[in-house]
């Protein structure tokens, strides 16, 4: 990591922290996850086979913030720079394309991870209030958070790439949401097919299944490989887009 990376990261984080949208997202996210956790806690009475984290990620509403937050965070990262013309400054500054891409990506992942902190506090408060009657193993906490961050990295890198392609934030967000929804729903087709090859292929990218497995405290190497390699691919593609922009500048 170069010094330029940390300077750019600080710039991105202070720009996010100075934006009122960040606080609105934090409040909306806190209220929404509180609502989902309350729903899961109510359902917990009817089942003795799952912990609250498993119930949370088996419910459909929790997927709304997971799928929507990343595009909202990443939509402006490059599109806004193109629109305001500040990309010219970045292109002429003594920084590499990789520094620019990694700093924006890291800032997005840090902010995305911070958005989940209220949800974690809610779950811990629930544990304290119920006096550990519905126990959660430490592995459940850690692995669920790891999986959420892996998803954030994957969706964040995809959003960053799409943001680097256009000057319009709205178009970047739209393309990002569509791409995420396609990946999300294409995996669900696994339950409609009987062909073992297709079933294996779709199961490999079935996001809900990955989340459920990790929230059960099970580590599988396949989601790690899939999300990390996808993240690297999108970051590399974003770097290539910037290289083209630099050539044209």
């Amino acid at each position: 990591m170069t010094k330029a990376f940390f300077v750019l990261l600080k710039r991105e984080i202070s720009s996010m922290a100075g934006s009122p949208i960040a606080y609105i997202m934090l409040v909306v996210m806190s209220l929404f996850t509180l609502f989902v956790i309350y729903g899961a806690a109510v359902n917990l009475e009817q089942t003795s086979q799952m912990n609250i984290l498993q119930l949370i990620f088996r419910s459909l509403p929790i997927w709304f913030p997971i799928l929507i937050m990343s595009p909202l965070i990443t939509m402006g990262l490059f599109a806004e720079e193109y629109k305001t013309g500040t990309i010219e400054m970045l292109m002429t500054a003594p920084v590499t394309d990789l520094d620019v891409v990694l700093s924006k990506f890291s800032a997005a992942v840090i902010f995305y991870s911070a958005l989940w902190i209220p949800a974690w506090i809610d779950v811990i408060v629930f544990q304290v209030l119920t006096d550990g009657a519905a126990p959660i193993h430490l592995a459940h906490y850690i692995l669920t958070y790891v999986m959420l961050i892996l998803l954030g990295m994957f969706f964040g890198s995809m959003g960053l790439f799409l943001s680097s392609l256009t000057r319009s934030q709205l178009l970047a967000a739209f393309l990002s949401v569509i791409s995420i929804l396609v990946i999300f729903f294409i995996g669900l087709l696994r339950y409609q097919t009987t062909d073992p090859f297709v079933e294996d292929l779709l199961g490999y990218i079935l996001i809900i299944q990955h989340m459920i497995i990790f929230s059960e405290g099970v580590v599988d190497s396949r989601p790690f490989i899939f999300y990390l390699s996808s993240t690297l691919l999108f970051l590399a593609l974003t770097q290539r887009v910037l290289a083209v922009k630099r050539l044209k500048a």
Partner: protein
Amino acid sequence: MSKAPSKKQWRLNHYISIGLFIVLFFAINFIGNKYYERKNFAGQAYTDLGSYSP
């Protein structure tokens, strides 16, 4: 000092690198799907609400 590549050469390198990234991505995922590990770190930690009444 090496000479900067011509525009045509730069473009060729650019597309080759993108192609390599994509090939590498599919190769990694193909191998990752074939040879994988799975481990349960939590055991069967099922919820017991017998003692809890809201």
